[in-house]
Each structure stands twice: as structure tokens, then as C-alpha cells.
């Protein structure tokens, strides 16, 4: 493997992945430094979700290497489970545990995976729920919450594991417009607090204000990487220009 700087947290090297004949990830090289916030952007079907899911191995890869904090992703098993606990993931569709209360959603991972005792776990859960602004909903079931509230609980649930890096896969795409901001604000705060984040989103505002870098994907390849300012005002590739013109003018 090539030299890895001590500040690099997530490193993808020559990663390839197929779904049958479809080459969804093609020679992906991507390095994310500790504390860095990277926004992944690109047309639908370009492989953004697959990239996220490959990083905590919800999808396997065909070739290449992925390391997190210098440790390669292990195969299926207990060790992989432990590593996944260090990678927080927030889904487009929230995926809160429907049969558990909001509080239990946030304590379950701590208790069962981190083996934290119940009391400490609940204390931490309440602090986190307060932080994302849904502290007063702790005893409700997910179905009783609005989408924005559910997504904030999902963020709290991931944070409760003290992850080294957080992955967000279009966290606001399933939300009504008036709820998007409450979620983005939480994410912005997280970025300010120094969390390493990989965020798949089309929210330009968030990218401009919170991201250190924008990664543009198309057809399973990373086509362009730049600072938000550079990317949005002066994209180099035709694919990016084309894509930006579409999302900015509608």
C-alpha cells in the first residue's frame, strides 16, 4: 500500500465494484482527512450511495482497498461489526427501529454493541436528543414523529456510538422542504464541532458553508474534486458543467 499520512482517516484505493454487468464504482481513489467534511455530488445512478455503503461494507467491493483509521475493512463477522460501529451512517429513509421508542433507538447500539450500562447510555442518549432538538420526544415511537424529527433522531443514534466518521446518504431528500433546514443545521453544527463527514447531498447551501471539498461523481467515476467555491463557480469538466446547469436552473 502507498504511504498514508497520519491525518488520513478514510482511504479508498483502486476500488471497483460491479452489479452484474454494471460497473458502478470504477477505479475509485479517495482520501478523507480527519475532521474533513466532503460533499459527494453527481447525477442519479452515478454510484454515490454505493460508495457510501462500500465504506462501511454494506456493499462488498470487487477489488481495491478501503481502510478506516489505517485498518483495512475485515470480512463479514464480529470484527467487521466492531468497525462498523466506528462509522456512523444516516440514511435517506431514516430507518429508525420502528418497534423501539426514540430513546431506545439511541441507547440500543450503546448497550448491545459498546456494552455501556443502561443508565449511562440513557443519559448520553438524552443529551444527544437535546442537542439535535428532539429531547422532548424521547418516549414516542418513530412513527409518531415528523420526517425532520426522525432524521435528527437518526443522527443522534449514529452519534451515540462515538463514530470516527459519519456517512450521510442524501439525508434530506425524503423530507418536506420546511424540514430540510432543521436537519442541515444539525449537520452544520456537527461539521463545526470537527466531525469527519462524507455527505451525499444536492444542497448547495450546505456544501458551500460546511464542506472542505466537493467530489463530483459520474458513471461510477470521480470526475472532479475541488473546494466548494471553485467547483460551483468554475467547474472544470464538461460533465460537471452540464450537471450544475441542470440543478441550478430549475
Amino acid at each position, binding site marked *: 500500500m502507498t504511504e498514508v499520512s497520519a491525518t488520513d482517516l478514510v482511504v479508498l484505493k483502486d476500488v471497483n465494484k460491479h452489479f452484474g454487468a454494471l460497473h458502478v464504482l470504477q477505479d475509485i481513489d479517495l482520501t478523507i482527512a480527519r475532521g474533513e467534511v466532503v460533499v459527494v455530488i453527481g447525477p442519479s445512478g452515478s454510484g454515490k450511495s454505493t460508495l457510501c455503503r462500500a465504506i*462501511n461494507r*454494506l456493499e462488498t467491493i470487487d477489488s481495491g482497498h478501503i481502510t478506516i483509521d489505517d485498518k483495512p475493512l475485515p470480512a*463479514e463477522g*464480529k470484527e467487521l*461489526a*466492531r*468497525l*462498523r*460501529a*466506528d*462509522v*456512523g*451512517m444516516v*440514511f435517506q*429513509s431514516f*430507518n*429508525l*427501529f*420502528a*418497534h423501539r421508542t426514540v430513546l431506545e433507538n439511541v441507547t*440500543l*447500539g450503546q448497550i*448491545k*454493541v459498546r456494552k455501556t450500562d443502561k443508565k449511562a447510555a440513557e443519559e448520553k442518549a438524552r443529551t444527544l436528543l437535546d442537542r439535535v432538538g428532539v429531547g422532548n420526544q424521547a418516549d414516542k*415511537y418513530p412513527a409518531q414523529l415528523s420526517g425532520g424529527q426522525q432524521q435528527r433522531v*437518526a443522527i443522534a*443514534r*449514529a452519534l451515540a*456510538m462515538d463514530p470516527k466518521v459519519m456517512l450521510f446518504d442524501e439525508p434530506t431528500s425524503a423530507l418536506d422542504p420546511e424540514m430540510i433546514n432543521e436537519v442541515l443545521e444539525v449537520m452544520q453544527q456537527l461539521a463545526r464541532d470537527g466531525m469527519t463527514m462524507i455527505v451525499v447531498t444536492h444542497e448547495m447551501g450546505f456544501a458551500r458553508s460546511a464542506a472542505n471539498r466537493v467530489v463530483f461523481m459520474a458513471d461510477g467515476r470521480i470526475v472532479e474534486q475541488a473546494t466548494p467555491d471553485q467547483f460551483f463557480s468554475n467547474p472544470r469538466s464538461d460533465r460537471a458543467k452540464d450537471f450544475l446547469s441542470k440543478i441550478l436552473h430549475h
Partner: protein
Amino acid sequence: MNVLLDNFALFREGFLGTVELTALSGAIALVLGVVIAAFRVSPVPPLRYFGAAWVTLLRNTPLTLLFFIAVLVLPRLGMNTWSFFQLAVLALSCYTSAFICEAVRSGINTVSLGQAEAARSLGMTFTQTLRLIILPQATRTVLPPIGSLLIALAKNSAIAGGFSVFELFSVQKTLSEQGYNIFLIFLWVAIAYLIITFFISAVFRFLETRLAVAR
């Protein structure tokens, strides 16, 4: 002449025989069925193949044939210390487990994939994901078919009567051999089965309402 009162001890013995067969086989089949269902959705291919083979083999073999194998073949292969009751429980629970496995598996499939992915992304192992997240949510869809399967089990246990296990149908055979009116015997045997199956239905209805309230 009253068939029931004259032969109450016999009826009680037969009733208890059927209850014991059903309860014991049902309990084992439930555990086995859930474990095999877990095998069938597990990430480990050999376990998946084993689970699929188990279900295919047991679900497609007539129960009577399983009884023949359990009672006649297994003792010749060294299981000669097993009693007829134990062999009957073995046949009934293995057979029923295949059906319970499929009921549980279809219940698992009704839980959205996102639930499992969320659990796994929190670092839960496969068993934790299944036990804490998937199965509790599958329970509600799985309860009614499992209730039906246990009722079927109670009725299937009659086959054991042909293999030296005393249950309700042995009562019928004994009494009709003694010349009692066959309709009256069947009437009481039917009532005894109804008591058992109504009890199973009631238990499952209770569980269903309790689960409905819990949400």
C-alpha cells in the same frame, strides 16, 4: 352406556398424550424453525444451503414417511434407546419446524431491508440484528400462520397413534375394537381436539392483541 364416563381414564390418557405430543413438538419446532430461518437468511453460504435443504426435505416428505423413518430406520442406525414417544416428537418437530421456518422467513422478508442495514451500521452482529431488530418486528406478521401451524401439528400428532404412542386416536381405536358406537367415540375425540385447538387459537389471539397494543 356412556362412552366417555365408562372410559374416562382412557380418554384422559389419550388427551394428555395428544397435549404432550403437541406441546413438546411445538416448542421444539418453534426453536428449530427460528434457528433454521436464521440459517436461511444468514450471510454464511453453508448455513444457507443447510437451511434450504432442511426445508425442502422435510416439507416435501409426507409426515407418515417421516414417522416410518423415525420409528423403523433410526433405531436400526443406533438410536435404539429412544422411546416411541421421543421418536414421534422428533418426527413431528422436525416436520413442523420446516413450515415454521418458512413462516418466519416470510415474516422476516416483510421487515424492510433498511431496518437490518441500520442495525448493521450501528455495529450489531448478524444474530443481534435478527434477535433485536428483525424478529421482534416480524412477530406480528408471523403469529397467525404459526398459530395455524401449531393447530395443524395438534391434528398431525394423530399419526403417532399408529406408531405405538398413546394419544386420542389410540383411544378411538381401542374403544371401537371394544365395540362402542363409533360415532359417539369420534364425537368425544373431536371434542377433545377442539379443546386443544381452541386453546391454541385463544393463546395466539391473546398474543396478537397484546402485540397490537404494544405499538
